[in-house]
């Protein structure tokens, strides 16, 4: 009797596992199909654009002689259009976190995103991946951003002057005042370890009798964490990739951040980016009330 019921349990367990595997295979397939269609759709859009770009000047009789002028004009138009897009939204985030949870990182696509953020009028942009790759290749990322800014927006007018912060020597770097966008590459080291460093600093002050432990509260810890530079908490985190996790992104600062997920940062279109901003603009924050 017992043996029989054990046998039955065993068989059932195998059946369940089999069904589970099929279920997951289907889900993975669905995911793959969606991303495949996305790429196809993107390619198709590119095609349409390329064809339009070829046909329109032909039809109008402009060929080569106006090319330079038109490209500068296009950049100017884009700048105006993106700026107007930013203003058309009910609310715009001050600080956007770009959280990449994908294995493959594309500098050009990230640079594009950062430039779009600047163009619509966002003041602070943080770029994060949990392996610290962007942080280690900070200069490469920043070069790419400068390049994309030049390509997309035309000349490096003072209007979009950039400031790159490197955490380690924040104080020296923070002297540019005319800037409109602060771009920062972040790594897990800026998360929990930075809270631990702040805690150590406070404990050292207590050890040296400069502070009392009972005075420590949220405000004090927050002030120590921020240091001398005041950067607001990210109001919006755009997460790229199918993994549903923050992977250690600034635990202290994402208290009230809205998370919006996008399937991938690769080949993301401006329209997708802007629709995420539109979604953010409709979010209502009640702050506990």
């Amino acid at each position, binding site marked *: 009797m017992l043996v029989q019921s054990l046998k039955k349990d065993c068989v059932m367990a195998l059946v369940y596992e089999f069904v589970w595997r099929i*279920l997951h295979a289907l889900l993975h397939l669905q995911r793959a199909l969606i991303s495949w269609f996305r790429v196809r759709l993107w390619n198709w859009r590119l095609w349409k654009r390329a064809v339009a770009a070829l046909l329109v000047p032909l039809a109008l009789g402009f060929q080569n002689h106006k090319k330079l002028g038109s490209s500068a004009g296009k950049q100017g138009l884009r700048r105006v259009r993106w700026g107007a897009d930013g203003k058309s939204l009910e609310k715009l985030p001050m600080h956007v976190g770009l959280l990449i949870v994908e294995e493959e990182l594309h500098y050009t696509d990230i640079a594009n995103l950062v430039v779009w953020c600047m163009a619509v009028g966002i003041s602070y942009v943080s770029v994060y991946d949990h392996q610290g790759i962007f942080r280690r290749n900070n200069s490469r990322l920043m070069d790419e951003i400068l390049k994309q800014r030049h390509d997309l927006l035309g000349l490096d007018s003072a209007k979009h002057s950039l400031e790159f912060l490197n955490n380690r020597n924040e104080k020296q770097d923070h002297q540019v005042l005319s800037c409109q966008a602060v771009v920062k590459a972040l790594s897990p080291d800026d998360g*929990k370890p930075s809270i631990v460093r702040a*805690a150590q600093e406070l404990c050292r002050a207590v050890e040296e009798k400069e502070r009392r432990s009972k005075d420590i509260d949220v405000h004090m*810890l927050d002030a120590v964490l921020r240091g001398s530079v005041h950067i607001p908490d990210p109001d919006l985190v755009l997460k790229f990739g199918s993994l549903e*996790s923050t992977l250690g992104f600034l*635990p202290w600062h994402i208290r009230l*951040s809205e998370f919006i997920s996008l399937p991938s940062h690769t080949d993301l279109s401006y329209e997708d980016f802007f629709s995420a901003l539109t979604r953010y603009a409709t979010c209502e924050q009640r702050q506990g*009330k």
Partner: protein
Amino acid sequence: MSWIREGELSLIERLSANILKAGPMPKHVAFIMDGNRRYARKRHVERQEGHTQGFDKLAETLRWCLNLDIREVTVYAFSIENFKRCKEEVDGLMELAKQKFARLLEEQENLEKHGVCIRVLGDLTLLPLDLQQRIAKAVVSTRKHNKCFLNVCFAYTSRHEIANAVREMASGVEQGLIKSSDVSESLLSKCLYSNNSPDPDLLIRTSGEVRLSDFLLWQTSYSCLVFQSVLWPEYSFWNLCEAILQYQLNYLSLQKARDLHREQQALQQLEADRHCVAELLLMHSGNGKGNAMDTQSRQEHLLTYTAEREERVRGFLEALQQRRDSYFTDLTSQVALA
């Protein structure tokens, strides 16, 4: 309505549960039970009714979790920010909590049967004294149970929790139990209210809001976050299954990221210990003793230092746990005296 709803799953639910259980299951699930008030508005009932139904849904969800072999659940019941709501609503919520904790004490037998341990995380001193006493009674009477765990975050925000952990460490430094250089990521984790639980594997927020609202910020760094649009009182078994499926799809990548983080954490600790040893040695050699150390004795110094640090930390954590335990026992003895 009791804390854990009795009753079994239907056949089709049981079948699905078994299929899900063939894969990796979350051991600890956290809920932000959002949408009670919107539900009340939608159904044209009193706001308080929405909260009551929200509690009933919790009882139902706990039963599903038991059926799914999820042994630990953490819920966000009341945030410190919620004190900003209108007085009427806050009073209503406190009254509901009082009722439910009283009810819990009547259900001792049931809780014992399932082996449910109840913990309440948060700054309880912000609550009215009679509620504090009831909470204390519930916590003390279920302390020994160890089959499943329900953590109720009450008068809680994550930033308060972290700041409180830092304050505890600083007071340990003040009393000479630990040194400021002993402060580390793992020590901070152990000073949080949630020190007795593993980090949640899965965090679920209902009602379509897509933020953490100051809940378990430290603990969910590598958890799977699932935002669902259903309002909490309408949450169903299938919603829970969907969230678990989401977790299973993310499982491998999350595990990888977690391992990487663990490695980095261990490396940081080693680095910190090395740094402390080097500083100590420098102080000694400054007093005129020998200079260059061979690697072996350096290693030995490192080992002794690490052992000493661990000993300090152990003593400190023991004292902390004792203080936290006695807060609850003191409250219950107050009740006994009264």
